[in-house]
C-alpha cells in the first residue's frame, strides 16, 4: 500500500513538473521556478513521510504554544 501511494505521489510530482517548468523557463520566471520547486519538494517530503506513517509535527501546536500564556483568559471567555 505504501509503495502504491509513493508511486502515485511521484507520478503526480513528475507530471506537474513536466507541465509547469517548461512554461516558467520559457518566460524566464526564475523566482517563480525557485518558489515552485521549494514548495513542491516540501510537499513531496511531507506526503512521502505521511504515506510511510511517520508522525509529522502538527503546525497547529505552534499556535497553541505561542498563545499558551493567554489560555486562562480564554477558558474564562468560553465558560
Amino acid at each position: 500500500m505504501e509503495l502504491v501511494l509513493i508511486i502515485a505521489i511521484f507520478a503526480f510530482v513528475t507530471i506537474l513538473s513536466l507541465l509547469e517548468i517548461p512554461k516558467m523557463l520559457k518566460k524566464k520566471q526564475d523566482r517563480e521556478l525557485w518558489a515552485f520547486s521549494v514548495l513542491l519538494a516540501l510537499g513531496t517530503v511531507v506526503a512521502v513521510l505521511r504515506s510511510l506513517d511517520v508522525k509529522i509535527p502538527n503546525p497547529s501546536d505552534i499556535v497553541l504554544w505561542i498563545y499558551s500564556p493567554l489560555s486562562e483568559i480564554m477558558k474564562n471567555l468560553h465558560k
Partner: protein
Amino acid sequence: MEQIKITNHQFFSLIALYSIGGSIIVISATAAGIANHDAWLSALLLPVYSVPLLWLYWFLGSRHPGMTLIGIVNKILGKWIGLIPSVGVIFFCFLVTGHVINDIGKFIAIEAMPETPEYVIDAVFMIVIVIAVLYGIETIARSSELFLYFVAILFLAAMILVLPNIRIENLQPVLENGIIPVFKGSLVLANISLFPMFLVLMIYPSVFPDIAKARVTLFKGFLFAALLATIAVIVPVLVLGGKMTASFQFPSFYLAKEINVGVIFTRLEFIIALTWIVTQYYAGLIYFYSCVTALSELLGLSDHKRIAVPMGFIISTISDVALPDGIYHLTWHTLAWPPFIMTFAVVLPIVLLIVFFIKKWVADQG
C-alpha cells in the same frame, strides 16, 4: 501583475459568502454554549462591533490604493519589521485553509460517507479550491454572485419550514444570567464571522479599486451575512432550546431533520449541509487565495498562479494532521483561535493605523 477588476455586486456577494463561511451550521452551538438561550442577543450585537472594525479596514485600504495587506504592512512598517506580520498572515491563511478543508472532510465522513477516508475528501476539496484559484479571482467573484442566492434561498426555505416546531418559551426568561454571558457570546461569534473579514484587505484595494463604493458594500455584505447568522442562531434555540442547541455539534443540521411537511418535505437536512459546504468552500477559497497571493507578493513573484498547485499539495497533505481529532479541535478553537485571529484582525490593523498617523504627523512637521 495584470489588472483584474471585479464589480460592486461581485464584491458584495464575495464578502457575504466569505463572512457566512462555515459558521452557518456550528455558530448556534458555540453561542448557545456560552449565552444559553440568550444567544440570539449575542448575534444581534455583532453588527455593532462590526462598525469600527470594518471602518478600520476600509480606511487602511483607502489610503493605499492598489495594494494588498502585505503591501500595506510593508509600506507602513518598513520592509524588515513588516516581514514578521507578513509571514504571520501567510502562516495564518495556510493553517486555516487546512482547518477549513478538514472541517468539510470530517463532516462528510461523519454524516454522509463513513467508509471513505477523510484525507480523500480533503484532497478532493483542495483540488476544487486550487482549480478556482487557477481560474482567478474574477471567476471566483462571478461564481459567488450565483451561489449567494442559492445559499440564502435554500437556507431560508429550510428555516421557514421548521417554523411550526418553534416554542417561544425556549427564549424565556430573557437575560436570566445577566448581560455578561451575552457579551462573551458575541465576542466568540465575532471570532467566527467578523474577525476573518480582515482578509478583505487582500481583495479590496487591489482588485476592487472603487474606494467610495467599497465602504457601503463592505457593510452591506457583512450585514447580509450577519442577518443569516442571526437566523442560524435564533431558530435552533427557538426549536431545541438553549441546552440542547449547545450539546449538538451541528445544530442547524439536526434541526432540518425535524422538518416534516406532509410526506413530501421530509429529511431536508442535506439542504442545510449543501449550503454549509458551499459557504465553507468559499471561506477556504478566500483563505487559500490570500495565502497564495500574499506569499507570491512577499517573494516578489509576478504570477501567483504558479505556486497554487504545490501550495495546495502541501495543504492537502497537512490538513488532517492539523486537527487530528474532535477534542484537539475543541481545545484549539477555545484556547488558540481567539487570540490568534485577534492578533491579525484587531491588533495588527490598530498598530498599522497608529504608525500610519505617527508617520503622517512626522511628515507634516518636517
